[in-house]
């Protein structure tokens, strides 16, 4: 069995884990991150994509609200390519308690969140999809945030400082001796091989799996697993994030996100952290509530539904769902359970991942005797792409193709543009719905951590648009068949990829998406003689 040695092992390739890896790397602490799937395999790709201003939490949890607005401002600065400055709205409907609005305004002011009342008539004129019954509306600094980009940004930045990442490696055991963690055992999820890593410290950033990981070290950490379902509309319904001005509930936020709009969410406690199957009934429920704010909702096309599991932490309580705090907890197991060399970070939100990482690494660094300060709030995640390079990109990929690729790729955009300039065939758009070029797809296939079409999808957005992979998946496989990881059985790769796409389409199969599925079934089952949707 292969054995490795490193100072710190981070478990979990979500926002929290990758944020921690970057923070460790910037402080010069050697670390390796292990993730059982691809990066963003967990909740960090199955969320709403809202970079909270904190306004949603202002009334109930001032501390959380304050953290949100601070982190919101930091992320805008360090990761402009991951944040869409949409701005957000809170709208009140006639059936909402008007007194809540007054409490909310005061609470926002106390938390330091800018909120400005705007003219309702003007608002409706600019956003005709909104209900004409809106009684009051406020502007807040909410934004849309791209989870994938943040995660890859964290990892690329960390790698520049020497950190390592092992995807498709599951931690199967945590070794300890004399009250100290000594290492972890890993199983390669692609070939079943085992390997072990010796280390001084383990950081448990396994999100909803936090309880399971802690249990490997014989510890009890109570993570409440709260499933939330979301739906994605085919186009941008509005230009700003829209929240409902009432105590937080289901189906009360719309987030415009690049080409799509995400409406959510629901809240159900589940046992299995991997339970990400969206339910048909949850979808219908969401639409019903969403209609109060956007009356014509039923006529707009849904492309898929998806679900994520919130890792909520309550030290010892039976409460669940929305009554549980969205704050995070940092558990020092040396102090709490007498096991040195292990910490768990649980709960929290995507928005506050950087702060969670900072607090975690502060603790870890102090235990390791390192006193380098945190730099993640100051140092940009990626170097911005120059105007000149962007212009060159537009010539080969067109306006949206170049802009989106530049935002996704950051520093590597130059390579992709050069490829396309040298060979115009590489500049061709392979995923037409999301405008992804062959050059970018090959770049992703080349990266060393793309083993499946799904991995390429998460890096590029290919297959995430209107047709949900019907046309780009076989096209891309054809182009990538020279790569060792795609040289095997294409039918199997396609089936795996498409079944995952169809998992999201199945709960929204009506109207145009049903026609889309029929077309897709026709192509794959008839032309390619493959199996039906499972």
């Amino acid at each position, binding site marked *: 069995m292969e054995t490795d040695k490193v100072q710190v092992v981070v478990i979990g390739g979500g926002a929290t884990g990758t944020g921690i890896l970057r923070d460790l790397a910037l402080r010069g602490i050697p670390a390796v991150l292990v993730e059982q799937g691809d990066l963003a395999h967990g909740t960090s790709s199955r969320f709403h994509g809202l970079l909270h201003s904190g306004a949603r939490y202002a009334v109930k949890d001032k501390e959380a609200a304050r953290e949100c607005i601070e982190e919101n401002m930091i992320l805008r600065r360090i990761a402009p390519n991951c944040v869409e400055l949409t701005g957000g709205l809170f709208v009140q409907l006639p059936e909402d308690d008007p007194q809540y609005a007054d409490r909310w305004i005061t609470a926002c002011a106390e938390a330091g969140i800018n909120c400005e009342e705007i003219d309702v008539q003007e608002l409706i004129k600019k956003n*005709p*999809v909104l209900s004409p019954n809106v009684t009051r509306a406020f502007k807040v600094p909410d934004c849309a945030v791209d989870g994938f980009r943040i995660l890859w940004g964290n990892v690329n930045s960390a790698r520049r400082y020497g950190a390592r990442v092992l995807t498709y490696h599951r931690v199967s055991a945590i070794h300890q001796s004399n009250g100290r963690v000594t290492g972890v055992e890993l199983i390669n999820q692609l070939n079943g091989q085992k390997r072990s890593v010796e280390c001084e410290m383990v950081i448990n950033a396994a999100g909803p799996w936090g309880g399971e990981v802690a249990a490997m070290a014989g510890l009890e950490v109570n993570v409440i697993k709260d499933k939330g379902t979301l739906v994605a509309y*085919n*186009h*941008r*319904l509005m*230009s700003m994030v829209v929240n409902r001005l009432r105590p937080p509930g289901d189906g009360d936020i719309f987030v*415009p996100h*690049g*080409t799509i709009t995400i409406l959510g969410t629901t809240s159900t406690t589940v046992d299995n952290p991997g339970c990400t199957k969206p339910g048909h009934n949850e979808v219908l429920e969401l639409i019903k509530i969403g209609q109060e704010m956007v009356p*014509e909702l039923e*006529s*707009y*096309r849904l492309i898929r539904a998806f679900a994520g599991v919130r890792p909520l932490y309550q030290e010892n309580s039976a409460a669940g769902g929305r009554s549980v705090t969205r704050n995070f907890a940092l558990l020092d197991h040396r102090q709490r359970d007498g096991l040195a060399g292990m910490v768990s970070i649980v709960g929290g939100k995507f928005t506050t991942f950087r702060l969670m990482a900072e607090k975690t690494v502060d603790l870890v660094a102090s235990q390791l005797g390192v006193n380098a300060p945190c730099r993640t709030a100051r140092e940009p995640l990626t170097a911005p792409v120059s105007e000149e390079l962007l212009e060159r990109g*537009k*010539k080969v990929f*067109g*306006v*949206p193709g170049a*802009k989106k690729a530049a935002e996704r790729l950051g520093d590597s955009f130059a390579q992709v543009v050069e490829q396309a300039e040298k060979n115009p065939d590489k500049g061709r*758009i392979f995923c*037409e*719905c999301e*405008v992804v070029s062959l050059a970018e797809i090959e770049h992703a296939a080349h990266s060393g951590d793309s083993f499946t079409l799904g991995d390429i999808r998460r890096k590029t957005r290919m297959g995430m*648009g*209107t*047709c949900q992979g*019907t*046309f780009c998946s076989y096209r891309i496989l054809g182009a990538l068949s020279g790569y060792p990881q795609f040289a095997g059985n294409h039918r199997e790769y396609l089936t795996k990829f498409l079944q995952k796409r169809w998992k999201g389409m199945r709960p929204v199969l009506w109207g*145009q998406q049903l*026609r*889309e599925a029929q*077309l897709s079934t026709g192509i794959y089952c008839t032309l390619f003689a493959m199996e039906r949707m499972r």
Partner: protein
Amino acid sequence: MSSDHRLALDNCIKCSICVSHCPVARVTDKFAGPKQNGPDLERFRLEEPAAVHPSIGYCTNCKGCDVVCPSGVAVSAMNCRARGEYVSLHGAPLRDKILARVDRMGRAARLAPSLVNRLAGLRPLRLLAEKMLGISAAMTMPRYAKKTFLELYKPKNIGDTGRKVLYYPGCYVNYNAPEVGLALAEVLAHNNIRVEVEQFDCCGLPLIANGLLDTARDQAKKNLAKLQGYINRGYDIVTTCPSCHLTLRQEYRELFQLNTDPLHEKMLDVFEYLSVLLQQGKLVTRFEELPLQVGYHQPCHLKAAGCGVPSREILQLIPGLRVADLDAGCCGLAGTYGFKKEKYAISQAIGRNVFNAVKELGVRQVISECGMCQLQIHHLTGVAVYHPLQVLAQACGPGKWLAK
């Protein structure tokens, strides 16, 4: 954005049928195609209006994509708007601004039409225009008539049938082919119907096709107001140019959200109008024998109007006349498109099908409703090309309608 438009956007299932039927995409890979330029990028334009593919200028606006789309997506309207956005961001070349104003060119040529015609045939001058302006030296220029249709037309004194007809001639008939307008008057006179004419603005299609939407919108409003006045006074409006017709009826609504409902009942292609008369038993079907074999080319914009080929039924009434359908798709000229240096070759490649069909059928005369199609078919094949009305007028009486 109107909710209609959002729904149209959502209707696209990415089947690519529009791409496989697009005449431009068929002959060149410089054009990203109707789907990518239309519904694909439209999703991006909701976030970033500048998300227009630079190849948008290669769309001929033939509307073939609209016709074939099984999902009812207004693809070409999306493309037109995108081109407008592109032009408002990057500006239009002087050449396009000139070509788009066919009305102004027509008025300017009034000063000395024969001189203009001669100059347009001078090779050195054309080469200069190609170099300086990007106007293809190879393409045949439309000839300007000595007198405009509005100058030539003299309403005849005809017994009153109670039918009031206003004719919207369009720029091409007025400046280049007044004989078509005169043929219309002749045919209607044969039925004792008097035609009124009036000076209108250009329908705006050349402006739309060149992305100059603001000017086009202004003209659209003026035209609609004038037409509405006639409709209020009980007039039927007839057209002879399928492109003007489609623009007035469909583009004004799809691109400018103007209300064109009144036009739907009251504005007809002249052959539709004659078909209505035929159905009512009021068409004078006394025609002279015309022993001719002609090829028929259906203009794309007539196809897009969804009214079939209204001239077919009427022409069948002419004894001796045999009309063979070329069935060859787009001719490739697309108004001002084929005159542009960088597009000339594409335009000719698209038109190859028409050339082949004419050769195969062995016809020496072709008829087609669109002046620009006529020009291209003549340019491609050298055969004489007429408006079907000229054939009909010939069958109505003595005049000489088919001599060019």
